[in-house]
């Protein structure tokens, strides 16, 4: 039992953060609680011995994705949601029921599977040394690595194209050309 306390703590932070992220009214609070959930998950990865993945999780999710979400909230003025507006879909009770059913079926199948109950954590201690991960990335998984690089480039370009402002062009098209401006000035003077 004393060995499990770190796990229970991290799991409580993760699930608490997730439930808070999905139920709070203030959008920025939701984003910050989600960042807390991601960090709690990083702690769980550390306990499972995947140090590289834990560091990558904190770096990517907390340091980048949470920042992205927060920036998007600021750019879409989401921080000032009308307090009287309904926050959830109209048929939310049926929705909750379905979600509870999903959770129950997943948990039930986990708890009833005999091969899963028989397993223990692999001993001796399993480690994922960064050198082995690097070797794997360069030999067995080199094609996924290059594809992910391509995907990230495409995503970056796509995000820039989607979110770029179009106002300067619109202004240009609506401004009168030099000739018309001269004609207007002459008309005004005369």
């Amino acid at each position, binding site marked *: 039992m004393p060995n499990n306390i770190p796990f229970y703590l991290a799991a409580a932070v993760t699930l608490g953060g997730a439930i808070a992220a999905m139920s709070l009214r*203030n959008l*920025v*609070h939701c984003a*910050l609680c989600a*960042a807390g959930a991601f*960090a709690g998950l*990083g702690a769980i990865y550390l306990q499972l011995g995947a*140090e*590289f993945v834990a*560091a*990558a999780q*904190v*770096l990517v999710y*907390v*340091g*980048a994705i*949470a*920042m992205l979400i*927060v920036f998007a909230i*600021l750019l879409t003025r989401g*921080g000032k949601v009308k307090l009287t507006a309904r926050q959830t879909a109209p048929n939310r009770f049926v929705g909750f029921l379905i979600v509870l059913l999903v959770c129950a079926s997943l948990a039930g199948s986990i708890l009833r599977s005999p091969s899963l109950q028989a397993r223990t954590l692999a001993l001796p201690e399993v*480690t994922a*040394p*960064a*050198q082995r991960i690097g070797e794997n990335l360069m030999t067995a998984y080199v094609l996924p690595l290059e594809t992910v690089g391509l995907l990230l480039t495409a995503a970056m370009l796509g995000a820039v194209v989607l979110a770029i402002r179009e106002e300067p062009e619109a202004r240009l098209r609506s401004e009168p050309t030099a000739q018309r401006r001269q004609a207007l000035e002459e008309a005004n003077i005369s």
Partner: protein
Amino acid sequence: MNWLDQIFVTSGHQLVSLAPASLQPAASVLLTIAAIMAVCGGCFALTTIIERKGLGRIQNRRGPNRVGPCGLFQPLADGLKMLTKEDIVPSSADKAAHFLAPIILTVPIWLTFSLLPFGRNMAALNLDSGVLFFFALGSATELAVFMAGWSSQNKYSVLGAMRAIAQMISYEVPLALATVPVLMLAGSLSLVDIVQAQGGYALGFVPRWNVLTPWGLVGFGLFLTAATAESNRSPFDLPEGESELIAGYLTEYSGFKYALFFLGEYLGLFAVSGLGVTLFLGGWRAPLPILEWAPSWFWFGGKFSALIFVFIWARGTLPRLRLDQLLNLAWKFLVPMALINMLAAAIWHLSPQWGGVFTSPPMRWLLTAAMLVFPYVWLGRAVNPRAGAKREYAYAE
């Protein structure tokens, strides 16, 4: 002199063995935490007064010199003032985020100190992916900066926070890229292994530190620049620019919370200085073979203090960069330079295997230096077109 070198390790073990056997792991952890907090807290207090006196001397004045001999008790006076100041929170502020922001800023930085090897066998945690952890904890502080700015519900705070985050995100990339050559050549992400890989002496007396190679020198310069920007220090302290944004994201903080932000900034500086010493300056290794009798933690402390002095010197000497100049520097100069540095480091490492003229050092040095100097000049001219031109002074008639 081995006993002096390992004095902290052995005394720590003896203190821990005084505790009952079942509590010994917890006692050892608590002892490490207490030691790190005491040392870093003491360094923080000393650095505040040294910085103010150093800046004063650079600006041709004495720093604080009234409290205690030569003003050495000034940190005590500052601490007392911060603790007794009234803690004002704006009425429309978001109370939870306003309260949590300084805490979320400082906690990850305290965590980074557990990774640094302060001496031989003196790293609290020897993680296999230590450097990645360092960067992960550094990026967790950006969320705290946003929380501080947004929760104050003040336009200047939000603006300052956005600028600070843009700066920190932009400079994370050169910081990480500048450390990649070190990781490549050391073959490991663990900080203890990186110091191990910088052992030995070339030509009998020149230490094999990473900074004494062409790619290491450029990498160290990039690392220092990016580290200055990451800690929001001058010349990159636009987010705290008093003439523009009052105090940026710190506007609505007073008393102990402001002291915590201050502490967080200095501790961040210490953390990146420690990382710079470990990655580039050889960690706890002595500079000459005859000086190896001095303890390893003495050399670490000496190099660390030298780096802090360089940061204070840069703050007193260089003017502040504007936001667009700052971002241009990061993306258009530092990132390409870091990528070229990676290539140069790879060529440096692999060229002895090519045989022929490359088996002796001078040709390797010449090739890598040429690979680094020409892009430096070219990129510098691209970012700042007036770089090489003669300055013109206009005097009043």
